């Protein structure tokens, strides 16, 4: 009889080209390599310098998302890039993909979008896979029961050349989320709450498996939001065992298996769960019922609290500096803090359900005077679906800007940014100093909280903005 294994161990074992030894790490096979313009050019250069081919173009999927403008082509026929370097970087990926035979979901593709949004949409992300990308939010794909993690550019080159990575086996951390999330509280509140509990380094060296009743009830989009932010707790990856919710979401997607192959795949995927009695290196429990609308108050995602709870006093000079930077005051709740900019988007919260959540608050309401609101769909597919439902009209009627898909103000390298001192309520994943523009102050929140805050002109509880007619 084989020993009881965790979900992580099952995926790990299935991808071992060579196990680790005292002297060398394991050689781990990579099923899917996601590529974007920012972290790949130097890796393509390594292939060129060594005269190497890209080993498996068919296991490589590229798109443009980070440096891309979110305003449409101008009257001059040009895309409004932030600077010539951004334009050149995009052109470089186009050239590299042509030269090395990689399928690029670029400007002319109806699938282009944020790499972590389009992988699942296309059905390229599937249970049991190993997925890597030169991007820390690769953890998103763990929502499908795939072992997915971010790598650096040197490793991007390793995968391009060999389809493999050298890896030491990480530890495992089970987070059991018991009970049920209260009404009006969502996946973003949950993951901010979790990171607030375990800390910004609480997952370092570990792969987190999220499990329990509250996780099983989450939609795929919500599971992606949770797994996406695993890296914000320092974890290597986040995982959720695939189930009927996963299979129903994937069935019929362009790259998902069909017919008999689909049935065989689902039968195999059903074995992708942690065996009874399997051992995790660490385990902890979270009570879903205790989660409230949650926001950040400092300069890393671990500084998160319920918006109606007083900001805790700084425990040291670094925390005090974070409070000062944010203009957060110990003893005061974040709720009611005036807002300058609201951003709905990013690989954390730019899917159709996120836009619906924001639109449900905004419908029939206006963004407060003096507040700028940007809504950036995660992909062309999300944009099409949202426009079919008329969500873009809800946003524009409320006074928000409806943009072209991309990472936009999450990483603020495409020209979408906040001004020094401005407070941004953002559905993205990082509230680091200067992340959304030099001197900009970021408060991470759910799409519902972001929309409610846009209407109120101050951080607001979305439960006070529920449209009754839509609740039915």
């Amino acid at each position, binding site marked *: 009889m084989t020993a009881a294994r965790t979900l992580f161990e099952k995926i790990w074992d299935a991808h071992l080209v060579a196990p680790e030894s005292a*002297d060398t790490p394991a050689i781990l*096979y990579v099923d899917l390599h996601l590529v974007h313009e920012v972290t790949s050019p130097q890796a393509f250069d390594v292939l060129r310098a060594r005269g190497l081919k890209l080993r498996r173009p068919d296991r490589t999927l590229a798109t443009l998302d980070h*440096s891309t403008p979110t305003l449409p082509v101008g009257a001059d026929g040009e895309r409004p890039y932030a600077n010539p370097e951004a334009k*050149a970087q995009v052109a470089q990926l186009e050239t590299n993909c042509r030269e090395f035979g990689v399928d690029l979901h670029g400007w002319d593709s109806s699938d282009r979008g944020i790499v972590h949004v389009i992988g699942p949409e296309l059905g390229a992300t599937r249970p049991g896979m190993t997925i890597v990308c030169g991007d820390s939010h690769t953890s998103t794909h763990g929502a499908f029961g795939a072992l997915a993690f971010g790598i*650096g550019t*040197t490793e991007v080159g390793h995968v391009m050349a060999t389809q493999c990575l050298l890896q030491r086996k990480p530890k495992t951390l089970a987070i059991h989320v018991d009970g049920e999330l209260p009404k009006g509280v969502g996946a973003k509140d949950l993951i901010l709450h979790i990171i607030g509990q375990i800390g910004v380094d609480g997952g370092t060296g570990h792969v987190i498996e999220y499990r329990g009743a509250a996780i099983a009830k989450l939609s795929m989009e919500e599971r992606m939001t949770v797994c996406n932010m695993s890296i914000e707790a320092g974890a290597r990856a986040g995982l959720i065992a695939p189930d009927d919710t996963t299979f129903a979401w994937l069935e019929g997607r362009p790259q998902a298996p069909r017919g008999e192959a689909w049935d065989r795949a689902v039968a195999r995927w059903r074995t992708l769960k942690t065996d009874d009695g399997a051992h995790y290196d660490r385990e902890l429990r979270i009570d879903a019922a205790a989660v409230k609308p949650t926001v950040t108050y400092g300069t890393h995602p*671990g500084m998160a609290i319920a918006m109606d709870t007083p900001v805790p006093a700084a425990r040291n000079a*670094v925390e005090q500096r974070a409070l000062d930077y944010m203009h957060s005051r110990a003893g005061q709740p974040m709720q009611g803090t005036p807002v300058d900019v609201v951003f709905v988007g990013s690989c954390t919260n730019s899917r159709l359900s996120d836009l619906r959540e924001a639109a449900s608050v905004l419908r029939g309401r206006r963004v407060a005077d003096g507040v700028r609101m940007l809504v950036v769909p995660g992909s062309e597919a999300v944009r099409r679906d949202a426009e079919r439902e008329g969500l873009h009209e809800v946003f524009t009627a409320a006074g928000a800007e409806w943009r072209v898909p991309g990472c936009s103000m999450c*990483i603020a390298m495409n020209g979408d940014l906040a001004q020094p001192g401005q407070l941004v309520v953002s559905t993205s994943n990082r509230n680091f*100093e200067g992340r959304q523009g030099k001197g900009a102050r970021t408060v991470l929140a759910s799409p519902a909280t972001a929309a409610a805050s846009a209407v109120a002109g101050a951080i607001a509880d979305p439960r006070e903005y529920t449209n009754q007619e839509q609740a039915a």
Partner: protein
Amino acid sequence: MKPVTRIHSRTAVLTDENIDTDRIIPARFLTTTTREGLGKLCFNDWRYLPDGSDNPAFPLNQPEARGCSILVAGRNFGCGSSREHAPWALLDYGIQAVLCSEIADIFRNNSLKNGLLAIVVSAAEHRWLLEHPGVELSIDVRGQVITLPDGGHIRFELEPFARHCLLEGVDQLGFLLQHADDVAAFEARYEAAA
């Protein structure tokens, strides 16, 4: 890559915890398509005043920190984005080793692959190093030991393969390429079973 065997320097100290890779190099500089010349952008928004002059409040701008190639940083250094531009920028700036009680996984991986020694020390040793900026250290990669001015020692762990590559000055891709046959055999087996 050049072999990395021994580093001898005074330490510069950044006491802040959770220094993320956005602080090491802000995202707006990531439009580069090369890895060279990023040192002048290292810690850009902390290091310079709005007029472009040096920020006197940035610890590494202090005269005694100039030229130091060993950085002692607050806990959880290198968290956040996976950008390898962070170790590229630090190396180009002149930092050859980072000592910390805890270093973010991706940053540590990226650093070791570029010859930047990312070394985890115990909490007590870390506290002492934070409290003693400018101390002269000698880091011996082969012996995995840091020698203090008083002759005291701090031992550290280094992933054995990363250590081998540092000492020999070889990169890890060569090792992977040597296993091309194993990869092909795995692939044939794996894809037949799918």
